[in-house]
């Protein structure tokens, strides 16, 4: 590592300056205001104001039925809508003690993992974009587009699907969808190496992400970091393995974790690379699910007329 700014400046301290980043700023990918206290080049304190994105979903849903809340779950994270639908539907089904048909379970896993690929592609693409690599972003979006096309064929929507419903899914796979998905997987798998060549092992990218933003394990857990970010800090924890929902316990897949290959464990590069490796795991899961997908069967469970959780 080179000389840090602290070492260069020694004990020189200027006047503190307060800077506002956002609420509207090209790098915030959404509306977020950060009040940044700086001393020269060094940020001493950041106060985040996160309320600009608050859209009162809970308050809206007070006046809706349980089914009507599903489109709201789409919008919690609009690049992972399937997974949000999935979580909500499973929660209501558990409260109501509904068992969904076998075929639905497979469909859900397939679309959720497809959506995970799309979401990870967006994550790694825009991360490259933010540190100055424009080309990989276009490659990621080229492939993400194919998934969105498949979802459009499936339910008509490209981003906000409202696909996984309580007790089932909105439509069965259309004719030819399964074949097209196999085709996509065959096309997509070699592309992961392409991202590695373009971005993962790019010297400039490594310099800008390795040893940057290190989150140690205890800090990550205490601050409630979850998902690939937690795994980037070296914790082998995945809800799909450790407390499986749906039928995730039937599939073989690995949980990639950060190893500090380019710097220290839990740096930006690790968090990035965990996502790249998860792409491979998603492909594995989708292949297994497509192979075992029951051909016949209904995609809706028999539901009571009025959906309300059982009184305890």
């Amino acid at each position, binding site marked *: 590592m080179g000389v840090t700014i602290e070492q260069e400046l020694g004990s020189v301290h200027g006047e503190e300056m307060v800077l506002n980043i956002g609420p509207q700023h090209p790098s915030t990918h959404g509306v977020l205001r950060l009040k940044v206290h700086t001393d020269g080049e060094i940020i001493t304190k950041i106060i985040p104001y996160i*309320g600009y994105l*608050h859209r*009162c979903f809970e*308050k809206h849903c007070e006046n809706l039925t349980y089914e009507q809340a599903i489109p709201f779950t789409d919008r919690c994270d609009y690049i992972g809508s399937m997974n949000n639908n999935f979580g909500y539907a499973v929660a209501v089904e558990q409260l109501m003690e509904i068992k969904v048909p076998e075929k639905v379970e497979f469909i859900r896993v397939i679309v959720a993992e497809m959506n995970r690929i799309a979401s990870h592609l967006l994550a790694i693409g825009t991360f490259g974009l933010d540190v100055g690599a424009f080309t990989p972003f276009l490659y990621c979006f080229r492939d993400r587009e194919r998934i969105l096309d498949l979802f459009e064929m499936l339910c008509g929507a490209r981003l906000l699907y409202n696909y996984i419903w309580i007790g089932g899914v909105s439509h069965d796979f259309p004719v030819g969808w399964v074949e097209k998905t196999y085709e996509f997987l065959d096309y997509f798998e070699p592309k992961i190496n392409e991202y590695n060549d373009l971005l993962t092992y790019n010297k400039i990218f490594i310099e800008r992400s390795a040893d940057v933003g290190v989150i140690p394990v*205890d800090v990550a857990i205490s*601050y*409630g970091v979850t998902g690939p970010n937690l795994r980037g800090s070296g914790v082998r*924890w995945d809800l799909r393995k*450790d*407390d499986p929902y749906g039928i995730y316990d039937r599939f073989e897949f690995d949980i990639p974790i950060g190893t500090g290959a380019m710097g220290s464990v839990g740096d930006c590069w690790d968090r990035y690379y965990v996502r790249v490796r998860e792409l491979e795991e998603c492909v594995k899961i989708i292949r297994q699910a497509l192979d075992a997908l029951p051909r016949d069967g209904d995609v809706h469970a028999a539901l009571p007329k009025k959906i309300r959780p059982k009184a305890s």
Partner: protein
Amino acid sequence: MDLAGIIGIINAKFGEDFVSIDEEVSTDTVRLTPEQWGQLAPFLRETPELFFDAMMCITGIDEGVESENLAVVYNLHSMKHNHKLEIYVSTPKSVPKVPSVEQIWRIADWFEREVFDMYGIEFDGHRDLRRILLPSDWEGFPLRKDYEFPETWHGIVVDKMKEGWE
């Protein structure tokens, strides 16, 4: 460790019947008073056999218009032992106050601010308890059952809900 084992360890330290489960209400939720929660929280985090290092979620609840109580639900999880615990702390609507665990689990900082923002529950000992999602000059606590929608905001008239909408 299963729930009975966890409760056994807690009761061995704090005395018999410190925590118990009311089977009729819920089979996996431990009900506590705010004082008990304040005593128990550091113990849950530090004891090696329990080691609840992750605060998964903190939820506010308004028990209903007829009820006198608000409540806070804590979902704890141990990454090391892979066991979990759900704790339900109720507090009266007149003076809603619960001890803060923000210095034990850092994520509780924002969770508690959100519960405060939506339900007005004071977290005793929180170092920075301000609204997190709503503007700082907002009046009332929107997720309480007796909340009334404001008619104007900074002089802007808020449209009434359309006729016939539920």
